[in-house]
């Protein structure tokens, strides 16, 4: 079957999987800490994409130099969502469903703001801001595109840094403690509002990073985050919604299944299957929920306990 797939497609699948992992890990982190599926993650990814596009187009800098800015802005906007919307609702004892709908509402508002910003870019700076990409600005090393090399390096760094943060620092251990049992964490003196803030900042920042890679990899529009929302949630569920490292694994499995699956199917059944690519994550999501609702993490836990 691998013969049906060219190396270029494999490279594309790895890049896509890395981007998906950045987005899925944030969803898992927030689900674990706040118990809320964050639909605003789509807008955070779009935001990251437009931060990169703006800085590159306006200042002419290398797109990858905007990575820290995208991380920071993504993190700060996620903090705004937490402080301005979710925290007041949580204090008013809103249910998880209400919080989830609030994230969806925030996504709609943020998408509106990004659309307005795109218009602003177009009218004020005469820069086209819809259906654009920065692929031509990307660098190459040994015929390998920069986005491929950068995404692999970034994902490896993120896994290592997250591991060190969560396992080797008191801040990380208190974050893990808060994820497991907020009330117990409070009773030993952990300020769980702070740990929640931290998790929202990290998740927003990672969504920003994922977003940054988008315009260098593909064409973006003001709704680019929404295009990937089903895949993000599917990768997160596939990894096991409660397992942070599972989200990375889920991101890779889904990324490969989605991209390679489409290529293989189009070669065997015909190109008519290409528009049905978004169906693949939904099928994987349905099968995961039916076979192992706790995702890959659930399978690993079952194996360990045998």
């Amino acid at each position, binding site marked *: 079957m691998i013969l049906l797939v060219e190396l270029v497609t494999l490279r594309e699948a790895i890049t896509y999987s890395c981007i998906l992992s950045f987005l899925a890990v944030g969803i898992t982190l927030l689900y674990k800490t706040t118990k809320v599926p964050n639909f605003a993650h789509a807008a955070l990814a779009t935001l990251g994409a437009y931060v990169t596009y703006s800085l590159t187009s306006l200042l002419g800098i290398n797109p990858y130099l905007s990575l820290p800015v995208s991380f920071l802005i993504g993190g700060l906007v996620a903090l705004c969502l937490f402080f301005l919307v979710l925290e007041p609702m949580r204090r008013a004892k809103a249910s998880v469903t209400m919080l989830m709908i609030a994230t969806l509402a925030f996504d709609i508002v943020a998408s509106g703001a990004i659309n307005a910003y795109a218009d602003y870019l177009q009218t004020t700076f005469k820069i086209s801001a819809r259906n654009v990409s920065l692929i031509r600005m990307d660098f190459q090393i040994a015929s390998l595109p920069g986005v491929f090399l950068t995404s692999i390096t970034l994902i490896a760094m993120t896994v290592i840094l997250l591991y060190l943060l969560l396992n080797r620092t*008191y801040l990380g*251990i208190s974050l893990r403690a808060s*994820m*497991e*049992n907020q009330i*117990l964490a*409070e*009773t*030993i*003196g952990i300020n769980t509002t702070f740990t929640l803030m931290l998790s929202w900042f990290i998740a927003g920042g990672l969504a920003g990073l994922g977003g940054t890679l988008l315009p260098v990899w593909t064409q973006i529009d003001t709704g680019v985050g929404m295009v990937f929302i089903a895949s993000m949630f599917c990768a997160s569920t596939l990894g096991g919604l409660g397992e942070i490292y599972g989200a990375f694994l889920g991101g890779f499995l889904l990324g490969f299944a989605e991209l390679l699956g489409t290529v293989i199917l189009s070669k065997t059944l015909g190109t008519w299957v290409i528009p049905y690519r978004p169906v693949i994550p939904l099928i994987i999501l349905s099968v995961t929920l039916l076979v192992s609702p706790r995702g890959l993490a659930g399978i690993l836990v079952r194996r360990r306990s045998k």
Partner: protein
Amino acid sequence: MLEVYSLNSGYGKLHILYDVQLNCKEREIVAILGPNGSGKTTLLNSIFGIADVFSGSIKLDGQELTGLSPHKIAKMGIGYAMQLQGIFADLTVEENLKIAAKMVGITNFDEATSTIFGFFPDLKKFLGRKASTLSGGERQMLTLSISLIRKPKFFLLDEPTGGLSPLYSSNIIRSIAEINKEFGLSIVLVEQNVRKALEIAHRVYLLVSGRINFEGTPSELAAQKDLMKLYLGMGE
């Protein structure tokens, strides 16, 4: 001294405790007894800022606790060993103890744990293990240790023998009495095992349907045969 005045509390619209008055002096073990659903855990949760306090006052050494968040109350010198969920199962035993110590500024972990291991030597063997792999009795030891390592002045204990074998229960109760003596710790103990609680308590409160029905010494309560029989299931 921990003082509770005219406490009315519950969760959201659910009113559970009515005009509860209670105090726990220094170095004292106060047992809260009562039938299931009488509000014993809610009382501890109210003291710790977890339940909603509708009216009344809770003071620690004259300082008001109501309205404070639990993590602030924890830093004022109160430890709380919660019923059945007193450990972080996903963390290792060492991480459980380290994070509890760190939160009150204890940096010398070896020194802090040496006292704990004096009480619960078995825990030393499990330091690197995930807490989820511990047995019921070992979990309870870790629950107590998480609170003790923080060197609290007051210690709230909710059903420390819940779900344990009689042998483990006796060990835990004996440890609580020793902790009280050696650390000079004041303890508010909620316990279903009436006989064992009465053995170590200095004073007892009987909580029935959210109200205090009796306050006195264990021997005074034991003399109230009707209360013992009606609410605590202790017959002739």
